[in-house]
């Protein structure tokens, strides 16, 4: 037994050192990153809402040390371990994540992430925000998409406009556009990537048999294909009545194997309930008989 305990102690020790050895290094060039604006009480309030939705389930309520029991422990962010880090380190960790901490790169906008940091810092009275550094002016193309359905052509027309100098706008030619339609588990691409013409326009054929909701509506999104993120783009969304009208009951509307409890098939309910009642009926009968044994001794 002593040997077992020794082994156990050894094991706990080895796990402990292994976890601490997996340090999470923030790249040097990220440590000095600062926000582009001064934190305000308003931002802290916004940050709190984002924190409650996205962070609290693991890190717990700020200052209450009630973080989730995970390995490695998430820790309370109001405490020293988090507060000694630079804003850049916090921003990098939120942005990049590291299992089991999720990455928020695509979940929270950049400003949202800074607001969360503003909220976290509000628990540190000694914190002084480093001077904000304005982001370098953007020099790439700024493209906005719009979409409409052309009934006579039976096509979706996407038009791209871009900002020109001195607040003017004009058609954006040579922009790659992708069309998506919302499906049950995500978005499905419709057709291939197409490039806008000199008028900034591109047309997509939409399959007539694609199922929509019961009124035939489908949610369509047009996005700019910009894998290297060299542009600032705004997608276009629209709900268009161009799908096939479909009125299928939800999978959990009818009684079935796979459905929720209240939609269990009758025959399963009957078989299960009857089996339980019959067998436990006999069991109760036997227990009752056993009670009778005691009374019979007088006879």
């Amino acid at each position, binding site marked *: 037994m002593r040997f077992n305990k020794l082994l*156990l102690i050894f094991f706990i020790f080895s796990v402990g050192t292994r976890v601490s050895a997996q340090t999470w290094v923030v790249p040097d060039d990220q440590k000095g990153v600062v926000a582009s604006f001064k934190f305000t009480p308003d931002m802290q309030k916004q940050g709190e809402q984002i924190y409650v939705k996205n962070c609290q389930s693991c890190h717990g309520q700020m200052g209450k040390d009630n973080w989730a*029991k995970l390995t490695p422990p998430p820790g309370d962010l109001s405490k020293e371990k988090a507060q000694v880090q630079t804003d850049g380190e916090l921003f990098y960790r939120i942005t990049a994540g590291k299992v089991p901490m999720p990455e928020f790169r695509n979940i929270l906008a950049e400003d949202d992430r800074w607001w969360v940091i503003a909220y976290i810092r509000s628990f540190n009275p000694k914190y002084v925000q480093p001077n904000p550094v304005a982001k370098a002016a953007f020099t790439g193309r700024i493209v906005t998409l719009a979409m409409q359905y052309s009934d006579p052509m039976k096509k979706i027309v996407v038009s791209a406009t871009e900002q020109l100098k001195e607040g003017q706008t004009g058609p954006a030619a040579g922009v790659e556009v992708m069309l998506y339609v919302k499906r049950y588990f995500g978005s499905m691409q419709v057709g291939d990537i197409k490039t806008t013409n000199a008028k900034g326009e591109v047309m997509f054929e939409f399959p007539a048999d694609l199922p929509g909701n019961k009124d035939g509506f489908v949610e369509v999104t047009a996005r700019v294909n910009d894998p290297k993120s060299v542009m600032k783009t705004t997608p276009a969304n629209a709900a268009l009545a161009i799908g096939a009208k479909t009125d299928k009951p939800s999978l959990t509307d009818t009684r079935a194997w796979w459905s929720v409890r209240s939609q269990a098939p009758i025959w399963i309910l009957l078989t299960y309930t009857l089996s339980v009642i019959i067998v436990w009926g*006999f069991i109760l009968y036997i227990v009752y008989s*056993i009670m009778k*044994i005691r009374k019979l001794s007088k006879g």
Partner: protein
Amino acid sequence: MTMDENKLTFDKITADLTHHIRINKGFLLWMGFLTVSLLVCLYAYSLQLRNGLGVAGIRDYVTWGMYLANFVFFVAASLIGMLISAVLGLIGMKWLTPITRIAETIAVAFAAVAGLVIVSDMGRPERLAYVFLYGRPQSPILWDVTVITTYFVLSLLLLFLPLIADMAIIHRKVPTLPSWLKPVYKFLSLNFTNHPEQNKIINRSIRILLILLIPAALSIHTVTSWLFAVTSRAGWDSTVFGPYFVSGAFVAGSAAVIIAMFFFRKNYKLENYLTDMHFNNMGKVLATVSLVYLYFNINEFLVPGYKLKHADAIHLQELFAGKDAILFWIVQLGGLIIPILFLLFRRFRNPMPLMLISAAVMIAAWFKRYLIVVPTQEHPFLPIQHVPQNFVHYTPTLIETLITIAPFILVLIIITLISKFFPVIPLHETAVEKGVDHVKFD
């Protein structure tokens, strides 16, 4: 026979079967050892409760590790009560009388602990009641907890009913019974006076229980197999999984009974009651159920092996010649084929060699469950992307191992307590069978 001779024989049987009912040094030492071992394992469990299931080796690929293999094993071992008492007993095999209580004790101990084993796999054990509160009647998980609870209660009643008469005898005639236990035995013996009506109720109740036990026992292990077989994963997607599990359960259970018989006979000096004939016959039972299990094994591997659907091919390759091959062949040869060959010979059905064979079968039976549960999960149909390496291959941790050992210690504690404070061999029944049931109760 004169009254005197009868009285003498009855007293002799009583003395033979109850002389071990006392608290002695050996018992205290053994229980002390078990308790300390259990505490070490419970400490490991407290670490899991505090830090979560991450302390075990189970990850997103293999979510059912040793805990689930352990669960299947415990349900399997408990099935033997049904085979010995119900199937063979109802057929009318008289030689079984001295073995029935051993089989029932094993059934009760393993069934009671099986429920706890499943809790060891729960990250939030305090939500156990949710299975009943929110369980779906369509789910085999709800069926499983229902039938295991039912089987445990049936087995407990089946253990208790023949004990009523025995306890009536013990609290009157066994001087070594600790005095504080006397009122308990008196109460539990329900004023049994060998009244014909009382015997009639007991016999009828036992008969009902034996009949109910057969479908209940078949259900628990069939439903346990469905937890796997209702998925379409390679290695689990099988229509023979029910009988495959049930026959495998009889193998593990028979081996457990033989091991228990061997140690009770030696420690409690029961050589006149658990004779070589009983071991010989149990050896034949073990050989028979092993042959049936071998038959299902051939079905389970040959048919998918012939078709070699893509996922099955990967799975079988790993078992036959890949990562799990060494364990697989040790289990199949050492736990099934070689034991069958040995058991064909009379001399290997003597107590000592039979116990050794049973021990090998029992150990192989546990690893067999491991091979059923784990390898399938290492080959998911849709591999997860960007996972850490330790998600892909399952390696049990020490904490997990200790938590897996804990139920075995619990089973030993339950079996020790039952066998220590009650006759291992049904006392009243043996007396009746030997024709000396003129027991007078005052």
